[in-house]
């Protein structure tokens, strides 16, 4: 992982990250029912910085400055808030103690990381839908604004704002806490968290019209959350596997689309544009992930991504190994997407006819009949078998299915290739 460059004396994304950990910290001290108040206090601290720093310069320890100002604002707010009356003194004492902690105290740093972790677990509570968990995590732990979340999800602001309001009401009504799950439920709760984190990553990774930097930020935030969990005492090998998987995929973010914004398939990608820092980082976590006996879907997917990353060029890809891992993945997760991705690898090892046979069963599933990826893979295999007319029909049918604009352009290109083959 490349270290974040400093801009104007501030670490990249400092405000966003500080906002997340300060909200998590204050929410623990104030109680998660007062998440809104925690957010408001952090916002106030940042506004004060925005008013003061342009005239007085950035303070030497910017995070400590923000931390102190947010705490002081919280102390004032708690004293004013009558709804907290019986707890006011206790909370003020806690806040004052926390505010006076030395900023370079390693204990405080650890406490803040722990607070963030607790907040992640609460945001990914199984009570919430996945969309809600992602929005809530981005807002509270990630320090994203409603507008930024809406832009990343191609949704409108009102929808996201509504979702957050409902989630906060749910926190209050269900009495969700910031306690870490007990040992017996930790495994399941961790799985919910990893699911949300990977979903967040994929949302950012999916190709959409009008590539926006915010989507890359989404991937990087998912990676950051993954790292945070991987570094904690409750981590399990599958967390490292997921971090490795995300790092390998994120390394290819820039190479995945060309100048015109068109999709570039893995094999045709310019490997010089892969982020070597992220790949090294991926291997570091991949090695950690295989330290135990655990084999999760993330392990299999990370192993596939690692095999691609190890190849020096498109010719160097070890297809038989990838084939073998796909077989494992299919056992762990027999989903249509895995079947389709595996088919492309089957074609490399055993030929397109064999691959075509492997995806045959999907055709009888009415849900998949009009799935663009199934049609695109089928078209690709038919084209390889020189059944060009049938391939063209597949691509044409795929173009009528819902898919993103870059995917549509990709399908059109394939269709043109077919038409060229017919001449």
């Amino acid at each position: 992982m490349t270290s974040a460059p400093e801009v104007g004396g501030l670490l990249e994304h400092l405000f966003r990250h500080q906002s997340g950990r300060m909200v998590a910290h204050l929410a623990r001290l104030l109680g998660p029912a007062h998440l809104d108040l925690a957010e408001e206090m952090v916002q106030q601290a940042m506004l004060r910085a925005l008013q003061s720093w342009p005239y007085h310069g950035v303070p030497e320890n910017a995070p400590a400055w923000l931390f102190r100002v947010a705490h002081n604002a919280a102390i004032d707010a708690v004293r004013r808030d009558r709804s907290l009356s019986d707890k006011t003194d206790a909370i003020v004492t806690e806040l004052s103690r926390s505010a006076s902690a030395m900023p370079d105290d390693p204990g405080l740093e650890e406490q803040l990381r722990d607070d963030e972790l607790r907040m992640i677990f609460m945001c990914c509570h199984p009570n919430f839908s996945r969309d809600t968990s992602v929005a809530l995590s981005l807002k509270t732990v990630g320090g994203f604004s409603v507008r930024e979340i809406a832009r990343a999800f191609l949704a409108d602001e009102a929808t996201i704002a509504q979702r957050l309001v409902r989630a906060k009401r749910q926190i209050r009504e269900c009495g969700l806490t910031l306690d870490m799950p007990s040992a017996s439920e930790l495994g399941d709760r961790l799985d919910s968290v990893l699911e949300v984190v990977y979903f967040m990553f994929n949302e950012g990774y999916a190709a959409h019209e009008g590539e926006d930097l915010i989507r890359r930020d989404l991937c990087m935030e998912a990676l950051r959350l993954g790292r945070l969990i991987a570094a904690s005492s409750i981590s399990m090998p599958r967390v490292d596997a997921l971090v490795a998987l995300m790092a390998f995929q994120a390394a290819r973010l820039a190479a995945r689309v060309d100048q015109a914004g068109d999709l570039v398939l893995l094999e045709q990608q310019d490997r010089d544009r892969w982020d070597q820092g992220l790949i090294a980082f991926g291997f570091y976590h991949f090695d950690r992930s295989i330290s135990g006996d655990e084999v999760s879907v993330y392990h299999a997917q990370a192993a596939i991504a690692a095999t691609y990353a190890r190849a020096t060029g498109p010719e160097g890809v070890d297809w038989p190994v990838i084939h073998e891992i796909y077989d494992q993945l299919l056992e762990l997760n027999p989903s249509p997407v895995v079947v389709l991705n595996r088919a492309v690898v089957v074609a490399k090892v055993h030929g397109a006819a064999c691959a075509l046979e492997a995806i045959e069963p999907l055709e009888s599933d009415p849900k998949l009949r009009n799935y663009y990826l199934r049609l695109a893979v089928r078209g690709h295999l038919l084209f390889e078998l020189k059944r060009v007319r049938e391939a063209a029909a597949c691509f044409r049918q795929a173009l009528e299915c819902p898919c993103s604009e870059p995917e549509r352009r990709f399908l059109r290109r394939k269709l043109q290739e077919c038409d060229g083959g017919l001449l």
Partner: protein
Amino acid sequence: MPHYMLLLYDDPSKWGKLSPEEMQKAIEKYSAWRTKPGVVDSNRLADDPGKVIRVTGNQPRATDGPYSETKEVLGGYYTIEAANYEEAVKLALAHPHVEYGGTVEVRQTWGSMT
């Protein structure tokens, strides 16, 4: 060299709409401008509306501000050195405050004219 004051007015409520990331971007831009050669001094005015002293019926009276009808308030000032108004305006135009929709008033100070 003559000194000029840049008086920065803006609508404070608009900043509340920025995300942490956008706030950081704004701070970085403002901070970068502050290190330009020619910037001598700067200060932020406190948020409270302040006091206004006026003489009414021969009696000076202090009342609470603001006295402005507009949403824009004076937020802070910079003192800069510039050869003339043209130079001063050039420096002021490059201030991110302008990009963020604020108003900048440029005034030469009396002392530096003599």
